[in-house]
């Protein structure tokens, strides 16, 4: 009688062990990407204090120019860790530096919303999910080869 060795438990253990670094790498990469996109969305052309030229993005007095304070206040926090690997992160504007962040993002009666965080997420969500699927499937296929 032909004997077969069931290698399924070993494969599962190997995949479980090797998937965490991939997930951590993906989380960090896309967090960085969304952070950059959100900051890019908030940064505009910069002009010196003494220049007379006022571009279309510089606004009217008393806001003579874009300071990028809101873009700089975007903070990345590592929320959840599994050993040395980071599995959950959060991006948010630091309210100590830019307390008006919520007003800019969600708008008020007199200010239209400028969704600097929601827009890049909805723009990149499809790409992120596709990338996650591909990378994780690739890792599972690599580790699922015969041991």
């Amino acid at each position, binding site marked *: 009688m032909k004997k077969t060795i069931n290698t399924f438990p070993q494969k599962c253990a190997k995949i479980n062990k090797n998937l965490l670094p991939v997930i951590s790498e993906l989380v960090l990469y896309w967090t960085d990407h969304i952070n950059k996109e959100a900051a890019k969305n908030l940064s505009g052309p910069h002009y010196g204090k003494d220049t007379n030229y006022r571009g279309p993005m510089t606004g009217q007095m008393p806001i003579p120019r874009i300071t990028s304070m809101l873009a700089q206040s975007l903070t990345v926090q590592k929320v959840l860790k599994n050993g040395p690997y980071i599995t959950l992160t959060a991006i948010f504007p630091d309210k100590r530096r830019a*307390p*008006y962040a*919520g*007003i800019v993002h*969600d*708008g*008020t*009666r*007199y200010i*239209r*919303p400028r969704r600097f965080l*929601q*827009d890049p997420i*909805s*723009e990149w*969500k*499809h*790409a992120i999910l596709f990338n996650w699927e591909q990378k994780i499937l690739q890792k599972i296929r690599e580790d699922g080869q015969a041991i």
Partner: protein
Amino acid sequence: MRDAYIIDDIQNVILSYFKSLSAPWTSWELIADYPAAERFEVFTKPIIYFCAPTIESKNRQYGGKIGYNFNMIIGVWTDIVTGGPGELNVINSNFLSVFADSKTMNTGTFPVTFGATTYANQTLVLQGVKITNVDGPREIQMNTDLKEWRSELTIQIKT
């Protein structure tokens, strides 16, 4: 829907559908786009605003027509006179109830106007609008001391 006016028409179709619903939807003011400041001068009903959809991705198929995945933000705005947080919760619950019952949602008929032509007895499916996902509602914390309550939910639409 017309291809050359697809963003405007999706907004129009969704808005027309919710406007055609019976009570309690008739007691709320349904408008397209983020409310202008003048809108709040006559603020007697809670405002529900339907923002223009934004493209998330495309669905391509060889030889076929391109379909789009859209995101659309729907916001609810109440203040102390128009019902406050209780009314906000009622509106959000009604939204969730409508989206949860997809059979009723997709067979409900309503009239819709594109340009100068009105089409009667249309459904969401007939117009090619499929709502695939709902995120939220997310409560928006007002940073000012106005007695207002807001929330927003994002729906995903597939054409």
